[in-house]
């Protein structure tokens, strides 16, 4: 008992030191992550990371590619386009809320809004646009919002993520909060996002092949066979939390938005490939 206590105290002291000197910049983190995965998978070209597990396994990749002739999300994207172009009751459209009328802008989301000091994801922007125009907000995990987001992503295919973390204390804090979330163990099973996607990409957890952290948000919204439909990134976050027996947080909660901010920043320089398909 006493021994355990002593070890705990010693550990606490050891951990307190790096904490006091903490402070690598987001760009330093990102470069280090790129280097980390390059050492882990020397044969995987950088741009391949957007394909997640398919970048790491030939068999899975060829199975996946054979299914790409008739992607299961095509109909949803067409519906999303129609909704995107249909005027609200007040006569305006979604285009009025976005830069470049909302075409080819996916790679700039999420961004940190310095006026209100919060992370704005694409789905949040879609709903804020609706509300500003007198419409009811959509549910965040699936359905219409996933279709609209998928359409907007499809107009941005190949454009490289370009997330900015401004120098303000608030923007930096949002990024740090997302980073802390990604690396914090949660749930009864005691897993962090990083337990699987930093420490074990390329490994199998039962019949699932774990994808690397790099490129993770590029393919969203995603059509999962498990869901049989499109879902948003925050739906996936909630599912991952539940898998480790952690109570999921609400889609578009501050925590999940900060997490998306951090995670997408890590993918800066990688292209948008969403919507895509996963098991």
């Amino acid at each position, binding site marked *: *008992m006493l021994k355990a206590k002593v*070890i705990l105290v010693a*550990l606490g002291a050891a951990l307190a030191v790096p904490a006091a000197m903490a402070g690598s910049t987001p760009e330093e983190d990102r470069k280090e992550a790129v280097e980390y995965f390059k050492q882990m998978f020397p044969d995987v070209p950088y741009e391949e990371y957007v394909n997640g597990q398919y970048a790491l396994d030939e068999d899975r990749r060829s199975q996946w590619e054979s299914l790409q002739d008739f992607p299961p999300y095509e109909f949803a994207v067409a519906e999303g386009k129609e909704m995107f172009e249909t005027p609200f009751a007040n006569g305006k459209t979604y285009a009025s809320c976005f830069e470049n009328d909302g075409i080819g802008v996916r790679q700039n989301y999420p961004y940190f809004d310095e006026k209100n000091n919060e992370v704005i994801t694409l789905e949040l922007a879609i709903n804020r646009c609706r509300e500003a125009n007198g419409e009811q907000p959509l549910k965040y995990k699936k359905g219409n919002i996933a279709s609209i987001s998928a359409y907007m992503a499809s107009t941005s295919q190949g454009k490289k993520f370009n997330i900015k973390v401004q120098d303000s204390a608030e923007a930096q804090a949002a990024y740090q909060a997302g980073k802390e979330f990604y690396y914090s163990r949660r749930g*009864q*099973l*005691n*897993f962090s996002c990083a*337990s*699987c996607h930093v*420490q*074990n990409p390329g*490994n*199998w*957890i*039962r*019949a699932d092949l774990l994808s690397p952290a790099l490129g993770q948000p590029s393919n969203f919204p995603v059509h999962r066979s498990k869901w049989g439909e499109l879902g948003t990134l925050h739906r996936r976050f909630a599912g991952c939390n539940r898998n480790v027996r952690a109570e999921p947080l609400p889609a578009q909660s501050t925590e999940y938005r900060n997490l998306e901010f951090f995670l997408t920043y890590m993918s800066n320089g990688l292209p948008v490939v969403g919507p895509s398909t996963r098991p």
Partner: protein
Amino acid sequence: MRKTIIAMSFTTLALGAAPHVVAEPSQADIDRGKELAFSRKDGNCLACHKMDDGKLTGTIGPELVDMKTRYPDREMLFKRIWDETKFNPVTVMPPFGKHMIMSKDEINRVIDYLYTL
């Protein structure tokens, strides 16, 4: 009140980790251990470990073979299943006992089974 309960849970933990005499396990103990090891909601060992006749096993942890040779000290094996993070802070193995994923008895049945591998 709170203090008492915390003290009590420490006692449970201490008891859980304390050495105990183990009788030769029965076939029923071993069968129960295998059931717990394979079940998704209990041990779910197959998620990470290749073992026995398990299908579609994961690759995260080492294969579970020769367990008696690798862990001659039953107490040590118990402690590592109870909370592997104490031995390796970056492990992804869940602390089965500490987090109450399995009870002390359940972990002991799993060990009965592991020792047949």
